Protein backbone atom coordinates (compact mmCIF):
# COMPACT_ATOMS: atom_id res chain seq x y z
CA UNK A 1 0.00 0.00 0.00
CA UNK A 2 2.02 2.96 -1.23
CA UNK A 3 1.07 6.02 0.79
CA UNK A 4 2.25 9.59 0.51
CA UNK A 5 3.65 11.27 3.60
CA UNK A 6 0.30 12.98 4.42
CA UNK A 7 -1.50 9.66 4.14
CA UNK A 8 1.03 7.96 6.41
CA UNK A 9 0.47 10.55 9.13
CA UNK A 10 -3.29 10.20 8.69
CA UNK A 11 -3.00 6.41 8.86
CA UNK A 12 -0.99 6.69 12.08
CA UNK A 13 -3.58 9.01 13.67
CA UNK A 14 -6.40 6.70 12.61
CA UNK A 15 -4.57 3.69 13.99
CA UNK A 16 -4.34 5.54 17.32
CA UNK A 17 -8.10 6.13 17.42
CA UNK A 18 -8.79 2.53 16.50
CA UNK A 19 -6.48 1.35 19.29
CA UNK A 20 -8.29 3.69 21.68
CA UNK A 21 -11.68 2.22 20.86
CA UNK A 22 -10.33 -1.32 21.12
CA UNK A 23 -8.64 -0.46 24.44
CA UNK A 24 -11.96 0.48 26.05
CA UNK A 25 -13.10 -3.14 25.96
CA UNK A 26 -9.87 -4.24 27.57
CA UNK A 27 -10.29 -1.64 30.31
CA UNK A 28 -13.82 -2.87 31.00
CA UNK A 29 -12.76 -6.52 31.13
CA UNK A 30 -9.90 -5.59 33.46
CA UNK A 31 -12.31 -3.64 35.67
CA UNK A 32 -14.70 -6.60 35.84
CA UNK A 33 -11.92 -9.01 36.75
CA UNK A 34 -10.56 -6.64 39.42
CA UNK A 35 -13.98 -6.22 41.01
CA UNK A 36 -14.86 -9.90 40.92
CA UNK A 37 -11.48 -10.99 42.26
CA UNK A 38 -12.52 -11.11 45.94
CA UNK A 39 -15.01 -13.92 45.28
CA UNK A 40 -13.06 -15.61 42.48
CA UNK A 41 -10.19 -16.07 44.86
CA UNK A 42 -11.90 -18.50 47.18
CA UNK A 43 -14.92 -19.72 45.20
CA UNK A 44 -14.14 -22.26 42.47
CA UNK A 45 -15.50 -21.27 39.08
CA UNK A 46 -17.43 -24.54 38.87
CA UNK A 47 -19.48 -23.50 41.92
CA UNK A 48 -21.06 -20.79 39.77
CA UNK A 49 -22.65 -23.64 37.86
CA UNK A 50 -23.06 -26.38 40.46
CA UNK A 51 -24.48 -24.37 43.41
CA UNK A 52 -28.08 -25.18 44.18
CA UNK A 53 -29.43 -21.63 43.80
CA UNK A 54 -28.55 -17.96 43.66
CA UNK A 55 -28.55 -16.63 47.20
CA UNK A 56 -25.28 -14.69 47.44
CA UNK A 57 -25.92 -13.49 50.99
CA UNK A 58 -25.85 -17.17 52.05
CA UNK A 59 -22.92 -17.92 49.72
CA UNK A 60 -24.79 -19.67 46.89
CA UNK A 61 -23.83 -18.39 43.44
CA UNK A 62 -25.68 -20.43 40.74
CA UNK A 63 -25.57 -18.37 37.52
CA UNK A 64 -26.78 -20.79 34.87
CA UNK A 65 -30.52 -20.05 35.14
CA UNK A 66 -29.80 -16.37 34.56
CA UNK A 67 -27.42 -17.12 31.71
CA UNK A 68 -30.07 -19.19 29.91
CA UNK A 69 -32.65 -16.47 30.61
CA UNK A 70 -30.37 -13.92 28.94
CA UNK A 71 -29.83 -16.20 25.93
CA UNK A 72 -33.52 -17.09 25.57
CA UNK A 73 -34.64 -13.46 25.83
CA UNK A 74 -31.99 -12.23 23.37
CA UNK A 75 -32.70 -15.05 20.92
CA UNK A 76 -36.47 -14.54 21.19
CA UNK A 77 -36.15 -10.80 20.66
CA UNK A 78 -33.85 -11.30 17.65
CA UNK A 79 -36.18 -13.90 16.12
CA UNK A 80 -39.03 -11.38 16.28
CA UNK A 81 -37.19 -8.13 15.65
CA UNK A 82 -35.08 -9.23 12.64
CA UNK A 83 -37.95 -10.09 10.26
CA UNK A 84 -40.05 -7.16 11.48
CA UNK A 85 -37.08 -4.79 11.30
CA UNK A 86 -36.08 -5.85 7.79
CA UNK A 87 -39.73 -5.77 6.72
CA UNK A 88 -40.08 -2.19 7.93
CA UNK A 89 -36.84 -1.24 6.14
CA UNK A 90 -38.17 -2.83 2.93
CA UNK A 91 -41.51 -1.14 3.50
CA UNK A 92 -40.02 2.33 3.81
CA UNK A 93 -37.52 1.68 0.98
CA UNK A 94 -39.58 -0.07 -1.73
CA UNK A 95 -43.25 -0.30 -0.83
CA UNK A 96 -44.45 2.87 0.86
CA UNK A 97 -45.22 6.04 -1.08
CA UNK A 98 -42.49 8.64 -0.38
CA UNK A 99 -44.45 10.71 2.14
CA UNK A 100 -45.56 7.70 4.16
CA UNK A 101 -42.04 6.26 3.98
CA UNK A 102 -40.63 9.51 5.38
CA UNK A 103 -43.07 9.57 8.30
CA UNK A 104 -42.49 5.88 9.03
CA UNK A 105 -38.72 6.41 9.09
CA UNK A 106 -39.11 9.45 11.39
CA UNK A 107 -41.27 7.28 13.73
CA UNK A 108 -38.66 4.52 13.83
CA UNK A 109 -35.81 7.00 14.45
CA UNK A 110 -37.83 8.47 17.29
CA UNK A 111 -38.33 5.09 18.91
CA UNK A 112 -34.62 4.34 18.76
CA UNK A 113 -34.27 7.13 21.30
CA UNK A 114 -36.92 6.20 23.83
CA UNK A 115 -35.30 5.33 27.19
CA UNK A 116 -35.51 1.69 28.26
CA UNK A 117 -37.25 2.88 31.41
CA UNK A 118 -40.22 4.08 29.35
CA UNK A 119 -40.41 0.74 27.53
CA UNK A 120 -40.21 -1.07 30.90
CA UNK A 121 -42.75 1.27 32.47
CA UNK A 122 -45.19 0.76 29.57
CA UNK A 123 -44.53 -2.98 29.61
CA UNK A 124 -45.25 -3.22 33.30
CA UNK A 125 -48.39 -1.09 33.32
CA UNK A 126 -50.07 -2.09 30.02
CA UNK A 127 -48.43 -5.19 28.51
CA UNK A 128 -48.05 -7.26 31.68
CA UNK A 129 -51.71 -7.08 32.79
CA UNK A 130 -52.78 -8.14 29.26
CA UNK A 131 -50.46 -11.15 29.31
CA UNK A 132 -51.45 -11.72 32.92
CA UNK A 133 -54.97 -12.47 31.76
CA UNK A 134 -53.53 -15.09 29.44
CA UNK A 135 -51.37 -16.68 32.12
CA UNK A 136 -50.58 -15.06 35.47
CA UNK A 137 -48.32 -13.53 36.70
CA UNK A 138 -48.10 -11.42 33.55
CA UNK A 139 -44.47 -10.51 34.01
CA UNK A 140 -42.56 -13.31 32.32
CA UNK A 141 -40.01 -14.31 29.71
CA UNK A 142 -42.60 -13.61 27.00
CA UNK A 143 -43.21 -10.04 28.19
CA UNK A 144 -39.46 -9.55 28.37
CA UNK A 145 -39.03 -10.83 24.81
CA UNK A 146 -41.83 -8.58 23.49
CA UNK A 147 -40.43 -5.46 25.17
CA UNK A 148 -36.88 -6.29 24.01
CA UNK A 149 -38.20 -6.78 20.48
CA UNK A 150 -39.72 -3.31 20.55
CA UNK A 151 -36.43 -1.88 21.76
CA UNK A 152 -34.09 -3.46 19.22
CA UNK A 153 -36.43 -3.27 16.24
CA UNK A 154 -35.51 0.36 15.43
CA UNK A 155 -31.81 -0.58 15.40
CA UNK A 156 -32.39 -3.42 12.91
CA UNK A 157 -34.76 -1.31 10.80
CA UNK A 158 -32.49 1.75 10.59
CA UNK A 159 -29.28 -0.14 9.77
CA UNK A 160 -31.11 -2.31 7.23
CA UNK A 161 -32.57 0.84 5.68
CA UNK A 162 -29.15 2.47 5.42
CA UNK A 163 -27.72 -0.74 3.93
CA UNK A 164 -30.52 -0.93 1.35
CA UNK A 165 -30.00 2.75 0.51
CA UNK A 166 -26.41 1.94 -0.36
CA UNK A 167 -27.40 -0.73 -2.92
CA UNK A 168 -26.39 0.86 -6.27
CA UNK A 169 -29.42 1.81 -8.36
CA UNK A 170 -27.82 0.08 -11.34
CA UNK A 171 -28.30 -3.32 -9.64
CA UNK A 172 -32.01 -2.69 -9.16
CA UNK A 173 -32.47 -1.30 -12.69
CA UNK A 174 -30.71 -4.30 -14.13
CA UNK A 175 -32.94 -6.70 -12.22
CA UNK A 176 -36.07 -4.73 -13.04
CA UNK A 177 -35.05 -4.78 -16.69
CA UNK A 178 -35.21 -8.58 -16.49
CA UNK A 179 -38.88 -8.24 -15.56
CA UNK A 180 -38.41 -9.51 -12.00
CA UNK A 181 -41.38 -8.98 -9.68
CA UNK A 182 -40.84 -6.55 -6.84
CA UNK A 183 -40.27 -9.37 -4.35
CA UNK A 184 -38.01 -11.18 -6.81
CA UNK A 185 -36.00 -7.99 -7.18
CA UNK A 186 -35.75 -7.54 -3.41
CA UNK A 187 -34.95 -11.10 -2.45
CA UNK A 188 -32.79 -11.72 -5.50
CA UNK A 189 -30.82 -8.50 -5.73
CA UNK A 190 -31.37 -5.92 -2.98
CA UNK A 191 -31.11 -8.12 0.13
CA UNK A 192 -28.00 -10.08 -0.96
CA UNK A 193 -26.30 -6.81 -1.96
CA UNK A 194 -27.11 -5.24 1.42
CA UNK A 195 -26.38 -8.39 3.40
CA UNK A 196 -23.25 -7.12 5.18
CA UNK A 197 -24.99 -3.95 6.32
CA UNK A 198 -27.99 -5.91 7.56
CA UNK A 199 -25.87 -8.45 9.48
CA UNK A 200 -23.96 -5.56 11.07
CA UNK A 201 -27.32 -4.13 12.14
CA UNK A 202 -28.41 -7.46 13.60
CA UNK A 203 -25.12 -7.74 15.50
CA UNK A 204 -25.67 -4.25 16.95
CA UNK A 205 -29.25 -5.16 17.87
CA UNK A 206 -28.08 -8.41 19.52
CA UNK A 207 -25.53 -6.38 21.48
CA UNK A 208 -28.24 -4.03 22.65
CA UNK A 209 -30.62 -6.88 23.54
CA UNK A 210 -27.98 -8.66 25.64
CA UNK A 211 -26.94 -5.42 27.31
CA UNK A 212 -30.46 -4.22 28.09
CA UNK A 213 -31.00 -3.75 31.82
CA UNK A 214 -33.83 -1.50 32.94
CA UNK A 215 -36.67 -2.69 30.69
CA UNK A 216 -36.00 -6.39 31.30
CA UNK A 217 -35.73 -5.76 35.04
CA UNK A 218 -39.25 -4.35 35.09
CA UNK A 219 -41.08 -6.89 32.97
CA UNK A 220 -39.37 -10.25 33.20
CA UNK A 221 -40.36 -11.14 36.78
CA UNK A 222 -36.79 -11.58 38.06
CA UNK A 223 -37.19 -15.03 39.64
CA UNK A 224 -33.96 -16.99 39.42
CA UNK A 225 -35.08 -20.20 37.72
CA UNK A 226 -34.32 -22.19 34.59
CA UNK A 227 -37.05 -21.05 32.14
CA UNK A 228 -39.13 -24.00 30.94
CA UNK A 229 -42.07 -22.13 29.38
CA UNK A 230 -42.57 -18.73 27.85
CA UNK A 231 -44.69 -17.75 30.84
CA UNK A 232 -42.02 -18.49 33.46
CA UNK A 233 -40.78 -15.49 35.36
CA UNK A 234 -37.03 -15.20 34.72
CA UNK A 235 -34.08 -13.03 35.67
CA UNK A 236 -31.40 -12.12 33.16
CA UNK A 237 -27.78 -11.47 34.13
CA UNK A 238 -28.14 -7.73 33.55
CA UNK A 239 -31.33 -7.50 35.65
CA UNK A 240 -29.50 -9.43 38.37
CA UNK A 241 -26.70 -6.86 38.47
CA UNK A 242 -29.09 -3.89 38.42
CA UNK A 243 -31.38 -5.39 41.08
CA UNK A 244 -28.80 -6.28 43.66
CA UNK A 245 -25.82 -4.01 43.00
CA UNK A 246 -27.38 -1.17 44.99
CA UNK A 247 -27.46 -3.23 48.16
CA UNK A 248 -24.65 -5.75 47.68
CA UNK A 249 -21.50 -5.73 49.74
CA UNK A 250 -18.32 -7.82 49.84
CA UNK A 251 -18.59 -11.21 48.17
CA UNK A 252 -22.14 -10.57 47.03
CA UNK A 253 -20.95 -7.49 45.10
CA UNK A 254 -18.01 -9.44 43.66
CA UNK A 255 -20.39 -12.23 42.62
CA UNK A 256 -22.44 -9.68 40.69
CA UNK A 257 -19.31 -8.67 38.80
CA UNK A 258 -18.71 -12.35 38.05
CA UNK A 259 -22.16 -12.42 36.44
CA UNK A 260 -20.99 -9.36 34.47
CA UNK A 261 -17.97 -11.39 33.35
CA UNK A 262 -20.24 -14.31 32.45
CA UNK A 263 -22.28 -11.95 30.30
CA UNK A 264 -19.19 -10.58 28.58
CA UNK A 265 -17.95 -14.10 27.82
CA UNK A 266 -21.32 -15.00 26.24
CA UNK A 267 -20.96 -11.88 24.07
CA UNK A 268 -17.41 -12.99 23.17
CA UNK A 269 -18.68 -16.46 22.20
CA UNK A 270 -21.51 -14.98 20.11
CA UNK A 271 -19.12 -12.56 18.36
CA UNK A 272 -16.69 -15.44 17.75
CA UNK A 273 -19.33 -17.65 16.13
CA UNK A 274 -20.56 -14.74 14.01
CA UNK A 275 -16.96 -14.18 12.90
CA UNK A 276 -16.48 -17.85 11.98
CA UNK A 277 -19.80 -17.91 10.13
CA UNK A 278 -18.92 -14.78 8.16
CA UNK A 279 -15.42 -16.01 7.32
CA UNK A 280 -16.48 -18.45 4.58
CA UNK A 281 -18.21 -15.79 2.46
CA UNK A 282 -15.00 -13.85 2.43
CA UNK A 283 -15.30 -10.20 1.52
CA UNK A 284 -13.77 -9.89 -1.98
Amino acid at each position, binding site marked *: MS*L*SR*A*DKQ*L*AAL*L*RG*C*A*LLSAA*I*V*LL*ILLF*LVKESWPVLRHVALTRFVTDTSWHPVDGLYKLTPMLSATLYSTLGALLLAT*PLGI*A*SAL*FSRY*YAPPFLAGC*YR*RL*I*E*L*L*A*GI*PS*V*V*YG*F*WGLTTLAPLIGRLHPPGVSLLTGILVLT*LMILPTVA*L*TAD*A*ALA*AVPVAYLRGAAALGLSR*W*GLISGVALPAARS*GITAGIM*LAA*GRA*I*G*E*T*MAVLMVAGNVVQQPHSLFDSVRTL*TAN*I*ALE*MAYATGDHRAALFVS*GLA*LMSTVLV*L*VGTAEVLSRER*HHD
Partner: protein
Amino acid sequence: MTKNALATGLIWLSAILVSGVFVWLLSDILIHGLPRLSWMFFAEAPKNAGRSGGIGPIIVSTVLILLVAMVTAAPIGLATAVLLSEFARYDSVFGRLVRRSLDVLAGVPSIVFGLFGNAFFCIYLGLGFSILSGGLTLACMVLPILIRTAEEGLQATPNDYRLAAAALGMSRSAALVHLLLPSAAPALVAGLMLGIGRAIAETAALIFTSGYVDRMPDSLFDSGRALSVHIYDLSMNVAGGDASAYSSALVLILLLLIINSIAMGLAKHWMHRSVVTV
Protein backbone atom coordinates in the same frame (compact mmCIF):
# COMPACT_ATOMS: atom_id res chain seq x y z
CA MET B 1 -47.30 -13.86 -8.81
CA THR B 2 -48.70 -15.18 -5.55
CA LYS B 3 -45.26 -15.11 -3.84
CA ASN B 4 -44.93 -11.45 -4.74
CA ALA B 5 -48.43 -10.64 -3.55
CA LEU B 6 -47.83 -12.65 -0.36
CA ALA B 7 -44.61 -10.73 0.29
CA THR B 8 -46.31 -7.39 -0.33
CA GLY B 9 -49.12 -8.34 2.02
CA LEU B 10 -46.73 -9.56 4.72
CA ILE B 11 -44.58 -6.44 4.49
CA TRP B 12 -47.56 -4.10 4.68
CA LEU B 13 -48.93 -6.17 7.58
CA SER B 14 -45.68 -6.01 9.55
CA ALA B 15 -45.37 -2.27 8.89
CA ILE B 16 -48.91 -1.72 10.19
CA LEU B 17 -48.25 -3.98 13.20
CA VAL B 18 -44.99 -2.21 14.05
CA SER B 19 -46.37 1.30 13.64
CA GLY B 20 -49.56 0.30 15.46
CA VAL B 21 -47.69 -0.89 18.57
CA PHE B 22 -45.40 2.13 18.51
CA VAL B 23 -48.29 4.56 18.06
CA TRP B 24 -50.02 2.83 21.01
CA LEU B 25 -46.86 3.41 23.09
CA LEU B 26 -46.47 7.03 21.97
CA SER B 27 -50.14 7.84 22.52
CA ASP B 28 -49.87 6.31 25.99
CA ILE B 29 -47.06 8.76 26.73
CA LEU B 30 -48.89 11.62 25.01
CA ILE B 31 -52.17 11.13 26.90
CA HIS B 32 -50.50 10.94 30.31
CA GLY B 33 -47.78 13.48 29.57
CA LEU B 34 -49.60 16.28 27.75
CA PRO B 35 -51.76 17.72 30.56
CA ARG B 36 -48.76 18.73 32.72
CA LEU B 37 -46.79 20.13 29.81
CA SER B 38 -46.52 23.93 29.96
CA TRP B 39 -43.86 26.54 29.34
CA MET B 40 -43.17 26.58 33.04
CA PHE B 41 -42.45 22.86 32.88
CA PHE B 42 -39.60 23.60 30.52
CA ALA B 43 -38.16 26.46 32.52
CA GLU B 44 -38.60 25.77 36.24
CA ALA B 45 -36.47 23.59 38.43
CA PRO B 46 -38.08 20.45 39.84
CA LYS B 47 -39.85 20.81 43.17
CA ASN B 48 -40.89 18.24 45.77
CA ALA B 49 -38.58 15.55 44.39
CA GLY B 50 -39.84 16.14 40.88
CA ARG B 51 -43.53 15.62 41.52
CA SER B 52 -44.16 19.25 40.68
CA GLY B 53 -42.21 22.11 39.11
CA GLY B 54 -40.41 21.86 35.79
CA ILE B 55 -37.34 20.13 34.35
CA GLY B 56 -35.34 23.11 33.07
CA PRO B 57 -31.99 22.21 34.60
CA ILE B 58 -32.46 18.58 33.61
CA ILE B 59 -32.90 19.46 29.95
CA VAL B 60 -29.73 21.56 30.09
CA SER B 61 -27.82 18.71 31.72
CA THR B 62 -29.10 16.23 29.12
CA VAL B 63 -28.05 18.46 26.22
CA LEU B 64 -24.61 19.04 27.77
CA ILE B 65 -24.10 15.30 28.36
CA LEU B 66 -25.13 14.57 24.75
CA LEU B 67 -22.79 17.28 23.49
CA VAL B 68 -19.83 15.89 25.45
CA ALA B 69 -20.61 12.35 24.30
CA MET B 70 -20.98 13.27 20.63
CA VAL B 71 -18.02 15.67 20.50
CA THR B 72 -15.74 12.91 21.81
CA ALA B 73 -17.29 9.88 20.12
CA ALA B 74 -17.92 11.29 16.62
CA PRO B 75 -14.31 12.15 15.65
CA ILE B 76 -12.81 9.00 17.19
CA GLY B 77 -15.59 6.90 15.70
CA LEU B 78 -15.24 8.38 12.24
CA ALA B 79 -11.44 8.06 12.38
CA THR B 80 -11.68 4.39 13.36
CA ALA B 81 -14.27 3.73 10.66
CA VAL B 82 -12.08 5.39 8.04
CA LEU B 83 -9.10 3.33 9.16
CA LEU B 84 -11.07 0.09 9.09
CA SER B 85 -12.60 0.65 5.68
CA GLU B 86 -9.89 2.62 3.87
CA PHE B 87 -6.47 2.00 5.31
CA ALA B 88 -6.52 -1.42 6.94
CA ARG B 89 -6.64 -4.31 4.47
CA TYR B 90 -9.89 -6.20 4.99
CA ASP B 91 -8.30 -9.37 6.33
CA SER B 92 -5.62 -7.59 8.36
CA VAL B 93 -5.37 -8.94 11.88
CA PHE B 94 -5.45 -5.44 13.36
CA GLY B 95 -8.64 -4.59 11.48
CA ARG B 96 -10.39 -7.76 12.56
CA LEU B 97 -9.20 -7.34 16.16
CA VAL B 98 -10.65 -3.83 16.34
CA ARG B 99 -13.92 -4.97 14.76
CA ARG B 100 -14.33 -7.86 17.16
CA SER B 101 -13.58 -5.70 20.21
CA LEU B 102 -16.22 -3.24 18.99
CA ASP B 103 -18.78 -6.02 18.66
CA VAL B 104 -18.03 -7.01 22.25
CA LEU B 105 -18.20 -3.36 23.34
CA ALA B 106 -21.66 -3.17 21.76
CA GLY B 107 -22.75 -6.08 23.99
CA VAL B 108 -21.61 -4.57 27.28
CA PRO B 109 -24.72 -3.99 29.45
CA SER B 110 -25.47 -0.39 30.37
CA ILE B 111 -25.23 -1.14 34.09
CA VAL B 112 -21.66 -2.42 33.62
CA PHE B 113 -20.89 0.74 31.65
CA GLY B 114 -22.23 2.77 34.54
CA LEU B 115 -20.09 0.97 37.10
CA PHE B 116 -17.04 1.10 34.83
CA GLY B 117 -17.63 4.78 34.13
CA ASN B 118 -17.92 5.41 37.85
CA ALA B 119 -14.74 3.52 38.66
CA PHE B 120 -12.73 4.88 35.74
CA PHE B 121 -13.95 8.41 35.02
CA CYS B 122 -15.36 9.43 38.39
CA ILE B 123 -12.81 7.88 40.74
CA TYR B 124 -9.67 6.98 38.77
CA LEU B 125 -9.59 10.13 36.61
CA GLY B 126 -11.01 12.11 39.52
CA LEU B 127 -13.83 13.73 37.51
CA GLY B 128 -16.30 12.73 40.24
CA PHE B 129 -20.05 12.69 39.59
CA SER B 130 -20.15 15.10 36.66
CA ILE B 131 -21.60 15.77 33.24
CA LEU B 132 -18.13 15.18 31.81
CA SER B 133 -17.83 11.64 33.17
CA GLY B 134 -21.42 10.91 32.14
CA GLY B 135 -20.72 12.19 28.62
CA LEU B 136 -17.45 10.24 28.33
CA THR B 137 -19.14 7.03 29.48
CA LEU B 138 -21.86 7.52 26.89
CA ALA B 139 -19.15 8.18 24.31
CA CYS B 140 -17.67 4.75 25.00
CA MET B 141 -21.13 3.24 24.69
CA VAL B 142 -21.98 4.96 21.44
CA LEU B 143 -18.65 4.31 19.69
CA PRO B 144 -19.51 0.84 18.31
CA ILE B 145 -22.70 2.12 16.71
CA LEU B 146 -20.99 5.14 15.12
CA ILE B 147 -18.07 3.06 13.86
CA ARG B 148 -20.13 0.18 12.46
CA THR B 149 -22.58 2.38 10.56
CA ALA B 150 -19.82 4.72 9.28
CA GLU B 151 -17.71 1.76 8.14
CA GLU B 152 -20.67 0.17 6.34
CA GLY B 153 -21.39 3.51 4.70
CA LEU B 154 -17.78 3.95 3.52
CA GLN B 155 -17.55 0.39 2.24
CA ALA B 156 -20.75 0.85 0.30
CA THR B 157 -19.20 3.67 -1.77
CA PRO B 158 -18.22 2.31 -5.21
CA ASN B 159 -14.59 1.22 -5.37
CA ASP B 160 -14.29 2.92 -8.77
CA TYR B 161 -14.04 6.31 -7.05
CA ARG B 162 -10.97 5.18 -5.12
CA LEU B 163 -9.32 3.80 -8.30
CA ALA B 164 -10.20 6.87 -10.38
CA ALA B 165 -8.89 9.22 -7.67
CA ALA B 166 -5.67 7.23 -7.32
CA ALA B 167 -5.22 7.15 -11.10
CA LEU B 168 -5.31 10.96 -11.02
CA GLY B 169 -2.52 10.98 -8.46
CA MET B 170 -4.80 12.15 -5.67
CA SER B 171 -3.77 11.23 -2.11
CA ARG B 172 -6.05 8.87 -0.19
CA SER B 173 -6.94 11.58 2.31
CA ALA B 174 -8.00 13.96 -0.48
CA ALA B 175 -10.12 11.26 -2.08
CA LEU B 176 -11.58 10.58 1.36
CA VAL B 177 -12.54 14.16 2.18
CA HIS B 178 -13.84 15.18 -1.24
CA LEU B 179 -15.36 11.96 -2.53
CA LEU B 180 -15.82 9.11 -0.11
CA LEU B 181 -17.14 10.93 2.99
CA PRO B 182 -19.67 13.05 1.08
CA SER B 183 -21.02 10.07 -0.80
CA ALA B 184 -21.20 8.08 2.47
CA ALA B 185 -22.93 11.04 4.19
CA PRO B 186 -26.38 9.39 4.49
CA ALA B 187 -24.94 6.39 6.36
CA LEU B 188 -22.80 8.66 8.56
CA VAL B 189 -25.84 10.72 9.54
CA ALA B 190 -27.97 7.59 10.11
CA GLY B 191 -25.20 6.31 12.39
CA LEU B 192 -25.02 9.64 14.21
CA MET B 193 -28.77 9.62 14.82
CA LEU B 194 -28.70 6.00 16.03
CA GLY B 195 -25.85 6.98 18.35
CA ILE B 196 -27.70 10.03 19.68
CA GLY B 197 -30.81 7.87 20.11
CA ARG B 198 -28.86 5.30 22.10
CA ALA B 199 -27.17 8.00 24.20
CA ILE B 200 -30.35 9.89 25.07
CA ALA B 201 -32.07 6.59 25.92
CA GLU B 202 -29.39 5.60 28.42
CA THR B 203 -30.40 5.34 32.08
CA ALA B 204 -28.39 2.84 34.10
CA ALA B 205 -25.03 4.15 32.88
CA LEU B 206 -25.78 7.75 33.87
CA ILE B 207 -27.01 7.06 37.41
CA PHE B 208 -23.47 6.13 38.45
CA THR B 209 -21.60 8.74 36.38
CA SER B 210 -23.47 11.99 35.69
CA GLY B 211 -25.36 11.59 38.94
CA TYR B 212 -28.65 12.61 40.48
CA VAL B 213 -28.38 16.34 41.21
CA ASP B 214 -31.25 18.21 39.51
CA ARG B 215 -29.76 21.69 40.06
CA MET B 216 -28.77 23.80 37.04
CA PRO B 217 -25.15 22.76 36.30
CA ASP B 218 -22.61 25.61 36.32
CA SER B 219 -19.92 23.69 34.46
CA LEU B 220 -19.07 20.35 32.93
CA PHE B 221 -17.64 19.26 36.27
CA ASP B 222 -20.97 19.63 38.04
CA SER B 223 -23.20 16.63 38.54
CA GLY B 224 -26.28 16.85 36.34
CA ARG B 225 -29.32 14.61 36.23
CA ALA B 226 -30.21 13.46 32.71
CA LEU B 227 -33.78 13.22 31.48
CA SER B 228 -33.78 9.42 31.39
CA VAL B 229 -32.44 9.26 34.97
CA HIS B 230 -35.18 11.71 36.01
CA ILE B 231 -37.81 9.53 34.36
CA TYR B 232 -36.35 6.45 36.07
CA ASP B 233 -36.31 8.12 39.49
CA LEU B 234 -39.82 9.51 39.17
CA SER B 235 -41.31 6.20 38.06
CA MET B 236 -39.30 3.98 40.40
CA ASN B 237 -38.50 5.86 43.59
CA VAL B 238 -40.94 8.73 43.94
CA ALA B 239 -44.53 7.94 44.95
CA GLY B 240 -46.89 9.89 42.73
CA GLY B 241 -44.11 10.72 40.31
CA ASP B 242 -45.77 8.98 37.34
CA ALA B 243 -47.47 12.06 35.93
CA SER B 244 -44.32 14.12 35.56
CA ALA B 245 -42.42 10.97 34.49
CA TYR B 246 -44.74 10.80 31.47
CA SER B 247 -44.31 14.53 30.77
CA SER B 248 -40.53 14.21 31.01
CA ALA B 249 -40.69 11.28 28.55
CA LEU B 250 -42.69 13.51 26.21
CA VAL B 251 -40.07 16.26 26.51
CA LEU B 252 -37.36 13.73 25.77
CA ILE B 253 -39.17 12.67 22.61
CA LEU B 254 -39.55 16.32 21.55
CA LEU B 255 -35.85 16.90 22.21
CA LEU B 256 -35.01 13.84 20.11
CA LEU B 257 -37.27 15.06 17.28
CA ILE B 258 -35.45 18.41 17.25
CA ILE B 259 -32.01 16.79 17.27
CA ASN B 260 -32.96 14.33 14.50
CA SER B 261 -34.35 17.07 12.27
CA ILE B 262 -31.20 19.18 12.81
CA ALA B 263 -29.06 16.18 11.88
CA MET B 264 -31.23 15.50 8.80
CA GLY B 265 -31.01 19.19 7.79
CA LEU B 266 -27.21 19.12 8.17
CA ALA B 267 -27.02 15.96 6.07
CA LYS B 268 -29.17 17.33 3.26
CA HIS B 269 -27.23 20.63 3.32
CA TRP B 270 -23.89 18.86 3.36
CA MET B 271 -25.02 16.36 0.72
CA HIS B 272 -26.41 19.01 -1.61
CA ARG B 273 -23.40 21.31 -1.51
CA SER B 274 -20.65 18.88 -2.31
CA VAL B 275 -22.22 15.83 -3.87
CA VAL B 276 -24.52 16.33 -6.83
CA THR B 277 -26.18 13.01 -7.35
CA VAL B 278 -28.53 12.13 -10.14
